[in-house]
């Protein structure tokens, strides 16, 4: 790159990062401030350091219950969508048929439609079969939305596995299913990890369905934050502390996923 291009790239990246990171920094700083510092004028970045907000949030039974719900719902969504997406993606990747492209487009279409379209039908059906305000209900609907995403990520990883390796496995005596479980899945492991993490994050951050399809029992952490916006005023310190707690797993996974995105499944084939 020429120096001018380099400068331009750095400027764009910096502006982008400032916009992305500034709210998080503000949230982090607020979560450690007392009520007075939060509204100090002019604003201070680091006020009187306190852990009071975290203590209150972490001992709030209602919030921690929702946090646990989020963990369970997101984990189960990962399991369900992987169980669906792995065979689907493998099958679609190995499919040699003119129907392949239309099938893939359909998969994507489900994903592309705005979630609002689904809210009312799902609400009515869930109401009938007693899935409103249950973890299972949220897991099911999250799976509907995350499985296509996982399929699309996984297909490209399965496409990257040469046919010859699976043919070698068949010559070695593997059944089609064994070729899938013992060769294709381990070789696609980086892709599976990426897909699982993205599914987890999607489900973790999911707001619309969690808001409309739960009341008390199955409420997730993202919704539970709203409890701190009461009639008596908004408890900004607690919101910030709860926000940081919710951000934590996402941040950890985001760092973890980097490694997988650069990793490739090279080595078995020439080169």
């Amino acid at each position, binding site marked *: 790159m020429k120096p001018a291009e380099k400068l331009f790239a750095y400027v764009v990246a910096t502006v982008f990062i400032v916009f992305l990171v500034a709210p998080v920094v503000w949230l982090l700083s607020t979560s450690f401030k007392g009520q007075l510092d939060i509204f100090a004028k002019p604003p201070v970045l680091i006020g009187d350091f306190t852990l009071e907000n975290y203590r209150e949030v972490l001992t709030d039974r209602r919030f921690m219950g929702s946090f646990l719900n989020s963990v369970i719902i997101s984990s189960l969504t990962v399991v369900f969508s992987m169980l669906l997406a792995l065979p689907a993606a493998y099958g679609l990747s190995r499919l040699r048929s003119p129907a392949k492209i239309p099938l893939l487009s359909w998969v994507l279409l489900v994903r592309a439609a705005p979630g609002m379209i689904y809210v009312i039908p799902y609400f009515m059906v869930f109401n009938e079969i007693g899935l409103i305000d249950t973890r299972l209900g949220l897991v099911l609907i999250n799976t509907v939305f995350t499985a296509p995403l996982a399929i699309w990520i996984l297909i490209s990883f399965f496409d990257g596995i*040469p046919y*010859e*390796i699976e043919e070698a*496995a068949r*010559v070695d*005596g593997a059944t089609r299913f064994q070729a899938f479980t*013992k060769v294709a899945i381990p070789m696609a492991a980086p892709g599976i990890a990426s897909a699982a993490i993205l599914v987890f994050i999607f489900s973790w951050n999911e707001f619309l369905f969690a808001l409309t399809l739960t009341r008390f029992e199955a409420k997730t952490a993202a919704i539970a934050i709203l409890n701190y916006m009461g009639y008596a005023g908004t408890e900004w310190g607690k919101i910030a502390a709860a926000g940081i707690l919710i951000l934590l797993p996402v941040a950890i996974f985001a760092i973890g996923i980097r490694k997988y995105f650069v990793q490739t499944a090279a080595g078995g*084939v*020439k080169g």
Partner: protein
Amino acid sequence: MADVEIKKLTKSFGTVEVIPEMDLVIPDGSFTVLVGPSGCGKSTLLRMIAGLELQTSGDLSIGGVDVRGRDPSDRGIAMVFQSYALYPHMTVRENISFALRLAKADPAEIEARVQNAADILQLTPLLDRRPKQLSGGQRQRVAIGRAIVRNPEVFLFDEPLSNLDAALRVQMRVEIMELHERLKTTMVYVTHDQVEAMTMADRIVVLNEGRIEQVGSPLELYDTPQTAFVAGFIGSPKMNFVRGDIPERLGGDLLGVRPEHMTLGEGDTGWTARIHLLEQLGSDTFAHVDSEVGPLIVRCHREVAELVGRDLRVAAKPGMLHLFKDGRRTDAPETL
């Protein structure tokens, strides 16, 4: 140990006929090389023997057993692929033992067979590495090791050396020949490199556009090519071809003479010629000459360098003429 018998075999992909109809017997214990230009159907034929591709019609038996409809693993074959096709997530030991582990063999037996294969291929120090920590030649040896442990009745190789550099290729060629010496198992080896075919095979099958041109020992193919295609394909540099009046006078339409069966000098018999390029290989010298019958290549001594630029005569040695009519060999006279 087993032979491979192919009867009236055909193969089409959709409407494209790749192998029109083929009969071929690959004898027990032979090292048979399938050779031919790119796209002639060598891989397709090999993959049908392996069971990775189904024949459109015809019979295929291995060791006298009809293998139609049998899985690749159930045909007594092992295959070495051009890309090696190692399992990247497994160590060398796991790669080699995969087939035995799938077959739920006894662990002690697995260990013994892996060790045996590793000894033969000098892989013992590498057993705990993964494929990406190996060189190209080592990877190819692992692929061969994976084939050996299965004690196949027939080894199938699809251009196993084409991803290696020239020096390594020569070395691996010798290793595979030694392996055949040692195991005496039937080996079917696909290549498009006629030098590989000549040096390795005890039997060569020359394929062209899905048809068998000729089957024979390397020297049979070299000395008495039955078709013009084989004459041009086997041998390096290629056989010289002359068309027109001269072959027609003899009753054919194509006359062939190999470069080493020609003389070049200042005599007064033969076709007039001038050297326009010399290829010095050290052991041999190939003179590219422009003659009255067209361009020819002649194998000479290195002293021929002194003759560059002079008016020369080029002639065929007696008894070394190949005559073809409509692409097939016909009787040629002793001399012109």
